[in-house]
């Protein structure tokens, strides 16, 4: 050994701090650029007078997207679709997870396996046939059609996560409830669900943010503003040159706030959920 323990430990600490500094900059700079651009007048964004720090900060970009574009409509659509698909998938997942974790019936193991497999099948493989199916059922360009399509990814994942939590709740608690005259349904509602509440909150987070962030289905299954969500709406703003970077950055900031805020509040549970479930990045 050439280095003493204390020296090498100090070295590790130093290298760690330096690396942290680089990582913080790497993460922060794109966010800074986003915020800075959203606060600038056009003349500070383009051309020779372009600045790195906004000299005369303004909120005009924000008022422009709210007043002159269908952004608020996209926002409302995103909320509707995300809330709808989240509610549906959480209810479906609670029932399914309880059945697999607690009830004994033939085919249980097979179904558990089927859930994992479906969760791993990527959307890029399914969007073409789904588009054909949705067109045939006249579900394209509707909010409920989009929310329905999101269940395909949300339900398997939520069920899989909840299965793990449900299985970790001691069976004795439920057996006691069953002896006291509860049936399975009231045991689920009165005993299991309250105990699994933290897990359900995490599942709501995953389901909501997945729907909120989803792009491919939203882009393929919608063709008018009436059904567009934020993600596809913004992509179209960009392609059609409706407006440019100032307002666009303002709208990306507003759109990123809900998932980021939820993530920061629920961080501990989210990390736990990741290790339990393995998650779509």
């Amino acid at each position, binding site marked *: 050994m050439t280095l003493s323990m204390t020296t090498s430990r100090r070295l590790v600490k130093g290298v760690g701090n330096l690396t942290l500094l680089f990582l913080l900059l790497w993460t*922060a700079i794109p966010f800074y650029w986003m915020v800075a651009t959203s606060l600038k007048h056009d003349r500070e964004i383009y051309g020779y007078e372009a600045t790195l720090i906004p000299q005369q900060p303004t909120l005009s970009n924000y008022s422009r997207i709210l007043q002159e574009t269908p952004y608020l409509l996209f926002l409302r659509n995103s909320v509707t679709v995300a809330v709808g698909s989240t509610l549906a998938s959480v209810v479906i997942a609670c029932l399914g997870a309880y059945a697999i974790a607690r009830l004994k019936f033939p085919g249980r193991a097979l179904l558990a396996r089927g859930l994992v497999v479906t969760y791993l099948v990527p959307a890029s493989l399914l969007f073409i046939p789904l588009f*054909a199916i949705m067109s045939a059922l006249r579900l394209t360009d509707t909010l409920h059609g989009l929310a329905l399509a999101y269940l395909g990814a949300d339900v398997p994942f939520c069920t899989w996560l909840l299965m793990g939590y449900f299985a970790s709740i001691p069976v004795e608690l439920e057996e006691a409830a069953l002896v006291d005259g509860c049936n399975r349904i009231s045991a689920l509602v009165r005993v299991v669900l309250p105990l699994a509440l933290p897990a359900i909150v995490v599942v709501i987070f995953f389901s909501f943010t997945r729907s909120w962030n989803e792009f491919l289905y939203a882009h393929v299954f919608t063709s008018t503003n009436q059904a567009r969500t934020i993600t596809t709406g913004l992509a179209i703003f960009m392609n059609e040159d409706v407006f440019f970077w100032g307002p666009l950055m303002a709208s990306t900031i507003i759109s*990123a706030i809900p998932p980021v805020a939820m993530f920061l509040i629920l961080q501990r549970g989210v990390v736990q959920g990741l290790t339990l479930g393995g998650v779509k990045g």
Partner: protein
Amino acid sequence: MATSSTVSLPVPQVRKPLSFRQKLERFLMQDGILGYLFLLPALAVILGLVAYPFVNAIVMTFQAKTAGAPGRFIGLANYAELLRNEVFLRTVWNTFVYTGLGVGIKFCIGLCMALVLNQERFCNNLFRSFLLIPWAVPTVISALNWRWIYDDASGLINNVLVRFNLIGESISWLSDPNLAMFSVIAVVVWQGTPFFTMAFLAGLQAIPKELYEAAEIDGASILQQFWYITIARLRPIFITVVMLQTIFTSSSINFVYILTNGGPADRTQIFPTLSYNLALGGAQRLGMGAAVSLFFFPILVVFIYFLTRRMLRERED
């Protein structure tokens, strides 16, 4: 002991016949029946939104099909045409580079980030929360933001490089054929690294401190401790995370679609974007588009098979 005639035993009450409702309830409350009832909605979702479309996709690849019209069976013609197509062959290569480099770099930076965040320091929780934020930002939004950072005329990078006279004229990060792929991968890495960090951090925190103490008493250096304890303990997580990320990185359309849409000259075309462009970008060749996705499905099947096994086994422990 009861004697026969004198004492009338309480005759077991004749049970009131169950009403239909009660019978139904008793029937439904059996584990077997209730289990299927509870799983019915989930099963409907799996079959209707994943299994059926998947089979549909396979059928489609043998058809010449446009949206709205019924398909015409053409056998393996779609596949044959793809194999002769230069763009497709380039796409295969691109997808490997994109996925390999993307996952590889995310893995390395993610591991560094996790190790650094696992050290003790002032305000560490704050740093951790901050470094994980890119993962929570919708990918479309990250992609839009980076497209602006890369902008030829006024983007952040060119702006800074020109301002400090590091380059004479601005660099076309997303339209230079030699740079585009790397520019896109940088964005993938920026957004996706925190996922690795979270998984690795959880693994690091599960390693018992006693292991390091024992190793130190035995005279192991910090490097030896790192290799034989930290890395050895994280290995199962490495495998799961890399497989998961390979599936999802190779099949995500968002970054490439927003940043370059496959350009310049198909230099960043990957399976999902090619599939999308063939099926919905003008020509509307749904069968061809589906065939592109199906082509790489065999590789995915291998990953899905091993991952499923791993994930189920980890649950049982």
